[in-house]
């Protein structure tokens, strides 16, 4: 049996937002019954805001959970905010997915793309044109999707690509092509390294605050607490993040150097390159 998180279990047993929106103004369909999973996403967009989202999924437990998570994440968001959601965000929302199930989160992201394209009035044909060339014919996976997933999730082996996109998981005849794409992408990454959350536009203050909070909660605090320490977010001023470092570690001599560096490093990795951490005692 798969090692699913409680969140995944809850969501596949009791998924939220199941069904059809009769007057949806954006619909995205991905997958097919032949592939073994498929998702239809219905959105109701008013102005620029997603006011309702529903889904129907054919697939395993994590496919159902990922679909439910996606709808929960986007309801209430603006189109612009929703566009920034990556499959990794879906995985984080679920508290993690087994490696071989990562493709379920990618399917959610793809359905959202398609729904938003549909809302903008791009016809499916047009959309398919820009989608690139089919690499895996068994599951209909394009090079464009493969490249995107490699970048967003920093993949470096063919198995990982298969786990995330299913490409190469059936007959295996496209594995060589995947290797070539992977080589190109890795070369590109070596030459032009990019942060994990690649942001083309600067973050809004609200988004930055959210991301800093998330990173502190999910990444930094668990590390500190292991050693009996703790961290508190006091304020954010532009790219300056002001924190209090408490508990056992506030007594260590090296705390301000080591801890501050750790916190800053993580925030730079997960939020923004030029974050600066200031410790307030």
């Amino acid at each position, binding site marked *: 049996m798969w090692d699913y998180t409680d969140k995944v279990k809850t969501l596949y047993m009791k998924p939220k937002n199941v069904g059809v929106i009769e007057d949806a103004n954006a619909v995205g369909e991905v997958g097919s*019954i*032949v592939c*073994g999973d498929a*998702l239809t996403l219905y959105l109701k967009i008013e102005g620029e805001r997603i006011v309702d989202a529903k889904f*129907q*999924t054919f697939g*395993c437990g994590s*496919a159902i959970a990922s679909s439910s998570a996606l709808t929960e994440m986007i309801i209430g968001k603006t189109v612009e905010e929703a566009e920034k959601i990556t499959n990794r965000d879906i995985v984080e929302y679920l508290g993690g997915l087994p490696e071989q199930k990562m493709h379920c989160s990618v399917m959610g992201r793809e359905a959202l793309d398609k729904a938003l394209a549909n809302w903008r009035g791009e016809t499916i044909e047009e959309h398919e044109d820009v989608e690139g060339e089919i690499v895996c014919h068994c599951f209909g996976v394009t090079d464009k999707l493969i490249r995107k997933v490699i970048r967003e999730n920093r993949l470096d082996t063919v198995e990982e690509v298969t786990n995330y996109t299913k490409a190469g998981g059936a007959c295996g005849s496209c594995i060589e092509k995947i290797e070539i794409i992977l080589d190109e992408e890795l070369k590109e990454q070596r030459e032009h390294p990019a942060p994990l959350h690649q942001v083309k536009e600067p973050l809004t203050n609200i988004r930055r605050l959210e991301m800093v909070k998330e990173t502190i909660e999910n990444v930094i605090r668990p590390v500190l607490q292991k050693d009996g320490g703790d961290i508190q977010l006091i304020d954010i001023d532009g790219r300056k993040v002001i924190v209090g470092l408490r508990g056992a570690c506030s007594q260590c001599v090296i705390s301000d150097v080591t801890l501050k560096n750790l916190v800053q490093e993580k925030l730079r990795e997960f939020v923004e390159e030029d974050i600066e951490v200031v410790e307030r005692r």
Partner: protein
Amino acid sequence: MDKLIYLDNNATTRIDPLVLEEMMPFLTERYGNPSSMHDFGGDVGADVERARDRVRRFLGAENDYEIVFTSCGTESDNMAIAGTVSYYTDKKHIITSRVEHPAVLNLFKKYEREGYRVTYVPVDRQGHLDLDFLKRAVDEDTALVSIMYANNETGMIHPVEEIGAYLRERKVPFHVDGVQAAGKIPIDVKKINCDLFTISGHKFHAPKGIGALYVRRGTRLRPLMYGGHQERTRRPGTENVAGIVGMGKAADLAMAHLPGEGRIALLRDRLEEGILKRFNNVSLNGSREKRVPNTTNVGFEFIEGEAILLYLNEKGIAASSGSACSSGSLEPSHVLRAMGVPFTSAHGSIRFSLSRFTKEEDVDYTLEVLPQIVDRLLEISPFWDNEKKCGKPMAV
């Protein structure tokens, strides 16, 4: 989990309490090594030999020395195939079926990569082996034919007696993977005319980690391992005494219970008919003829197998699926694909496998909860029309 309805007996079975009882002394005070000179060990050796005789009778073999104890079905399969192939080094053709267990199939694939000519005999839509195809494939260069007696996913029984007779005439070594037949149908290796026959203890109420290979008198076989003199040097290593004794007892019990397999078949049929009658999006994988009595495999359209399993699990029911998602690979089971089961229902295939410990109320409970599960998943499915209660027309 408080409630457990175990309908996954082709994956593994519970140890019969009588088997455990018989094993206990060898896990506690009777820990001697059968190879020792002293009586404390030597007496244990006598129990090993008694177990060997029980397994011999279970398989219908002639001589006790034809039974070699191993660690599992996979080892027996490997020993039979690799042992034969490495003996007949001048022959470069081997034959198996497309629906074998990975313990056989992956070894054949290895030989294929190494340059062997490999024939994979196909099956029809019901899972019946293409016997003529197999016969035509045999030639002077054939080193071995390995065919499973009963399939683990569908329970379909292959015509091993006919194959055995044909191969015996041509003096081609014949291995039968009997793992899923043992304990479910009577076995008679002499009637089958096979040279090698694999069984695995944990599929018939003995513990995991014990298997056996029948090696007909005079069969040429190279060992997989080299070491001491145990098992006449065919399988060196100090014996898993408790496992061997347990398998001996389990073999005796299986023979005693074989007439009771009729009851299991009735329960299985009740489950199967109940499912096929209740839903209009379900069909049988396999056929009712030539099938072991405990297995049924049904394919649901429009819903996915792992999701069904997870929902069943939530209700305390343990079953298994042929779906891609539950197996770690991404394609539906190679067995269902070999049968040509359409992907649309292969993805939603579920195997229920019963045992003599299955109760009537287990089947009734399953039939009671299954409709809620299937209806709920249909509701979630994009391929199901919830108003018209039928599948949506779709482009695949």
